[in-house]
């Protein structure tokens, strides 16, 4: 068993037992937030980290799925239909987003996604008959999959954990698959990929769809967690925040977005209780990461760890030699 497998197993055990060792419902709820925001960040990481396509409109897709589910619940649909509706609209919107945005890469892609995200924010804010404008939409109750109630903080946490694990495994499988390798290839050398016979546009489009699916899932979890959705959830700040999660944790890594999501949610939800200017602290943390670990926390910490183990390995024979001489 290698160190990575051990780390994953320990993390899984810790996550599964979390409601038993954290102090109170509040922290269980924080953990739920970390998990669904991690799914959101994993989704964005598929295109930003592995595809090299930085989106500043992902909160729009997140919100579309959340709004659809809330609206359908509000007009009387059941949970299953509303969830399917949210997923369908989220995925369909991502397809439209991708068709429009993939006409460009780099700054062009960022600007198109930013504009599309702002359109969705504008709709959420102004299409009052559907979205209830600034007042948002409230929902009541959570689904009971297979008859299991997820109304309590603990049960909702376990449901979110299950979906998070499935999402994580899906990303793990995807990035190690031929299609995932092709997506990474289009990030590094799109011209070469075309010359090798790949359809770069379609590869990126499929990457976007997968990203959209994860984003829609997190949007639906968000609305069931909050029991409320308003334009604030789809604004530019929300898109930038999830992008910061990806960048801070390590774009193009599996664990980076999860660490980034944990960092942002903990500072927002826990540290903000002790420090009034918590967003300044968050800003300072990002500046620190960008300066000292420009490729993100996970690769940065990994590098430090490797450096120490190499130093330790190099020191070991010298110590033995000295001991030998002393004898």
């Amino acid at each position, binding site marked *: 068993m290698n160190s990575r497998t051990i780390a994953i197993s320990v993390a899984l055990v810790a996550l599964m037992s979390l409601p038993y060792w954290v102090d109170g419902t509040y922290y269980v709820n924080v953990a739920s937030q970390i998990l669904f925001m991690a799914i959101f960040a994993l989704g964005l990481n598929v295109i930003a980290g592995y595809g090299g396509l930085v989106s500043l409109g992902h909160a729009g897709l997140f919100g579309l799925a959340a709004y659809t589910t809330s609206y359908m619940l509000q007009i009387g649909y059941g949970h299953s239909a509303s969830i399917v509706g949210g997923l369908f609209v989220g995925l369909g919107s991502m397809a439209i987003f991708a068709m429009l945005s993939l006409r460009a890469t780099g700054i062009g892609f960022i600007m198109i996604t930013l504009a599309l995200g702002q359109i969705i924010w504008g709709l959420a804010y102004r299409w009052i008959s559907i979205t209830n404008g600034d007042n948002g939409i409230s929902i009541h109750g959570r689904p009971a999959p297979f008859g299991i109630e997820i109304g309590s903080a603990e049960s909702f946490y376990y449901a979110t954990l299950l979906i998070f694990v499935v999402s994580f495994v899906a990303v793990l*499988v995807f990035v190690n698959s031929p299609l995932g390798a092709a997506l990474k290839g289009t990030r590094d050398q799109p*011209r070469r990929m075309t010359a090798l*016979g790949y*359809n770069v546009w379609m590869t990126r489009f499929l990457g976007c769809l997968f990203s959209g699916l994860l984003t829609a899932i997190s949007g639906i979890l968000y609305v069931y967690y909050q029991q409320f959705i308003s334009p604030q959830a789809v604004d530019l700040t929300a898109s930038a925040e999830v992008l910061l999660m990806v960048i801070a944790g390590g774009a193009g890594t599996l664990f980076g977005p999860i660490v980034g999501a944990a960092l942002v949610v903990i500072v927002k939800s826990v540290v903000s209780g002790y420090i009034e200017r918590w967003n300044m602290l968050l800003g300072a943390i990002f500046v620190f990461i960008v300066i000292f670990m420009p490729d993100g926390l996970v690769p940065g910490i990994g590098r430090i760890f490797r450096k120490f183990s190499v130093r330790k390995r190099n020191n070991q024979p010298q110590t033995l030699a000295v001991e030998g001489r002393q004898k």
Partner: protein
Amino acid sequence: MKALSIRGLRKSFGGLRVTNNLNLDVAVGERRLIIGPNGAGKTTLFNQITGEITPDSGSMMLMGVDMTDVPSRHRPHMGLARTYQIITLFPRDTLLRNVTLSLLGLKRTRWNPFTRLEALDQIIEKATEALDMVGLSDMAHRPLSETSYGERRRVEIAMALAQRPKVLLLDEPYAGLSIDERAGIKSLISSIPRNVSIVMIEHDMDVALDFADRISLVYFGEVIVEGTRAEVVSHPRTKEVYLGE
């Protein structure tokens, strides 16, 4: 049937004509050398053959099949492979992964989002064979960033050969190499089987002349001299515009 046949190819960028009624025929198994001064339009010609640049007019046939309007990404599937003047590889990956990506480009498996790439034994085996062909199989798992420039040139050739092309375009394969590395690449190119037609752009006449069955001198986007080595080297226009008196 010609391996590659180009007729009346024209391309302009605004008022600058980069390819001017260019005609080129390469026989099956032939080694063709394209020479010409800097800015003559040699790489632009390669970019049009691979479809990276769309010509204004003219036609291109690959093994008797018209590929003029075929999208760039489909041309490797027809048997066309190339290397680049500036090495264009995947720097974050290993040598094996680079060649695997090349092989995967021609397989339907490239759309598979479920199977582990490392579990595709046949492809991995073929990629290892391709690396073996260029003498790099013992470095298969080394990251590309830890290899020398000459080794990267070999990887580029391995990637092209792995696709079993019918026509291989080599854009200045000796550029930036040391004398020893040049000798290695030269013997590697010489070992490519004759069922692969090769068109090579090269400035180093010492290494390139031995390679060529026929030579085309490109000047201002058109072939102004074409023939055997002796014919082209002794031609007055070659001396005038390329070799010097």
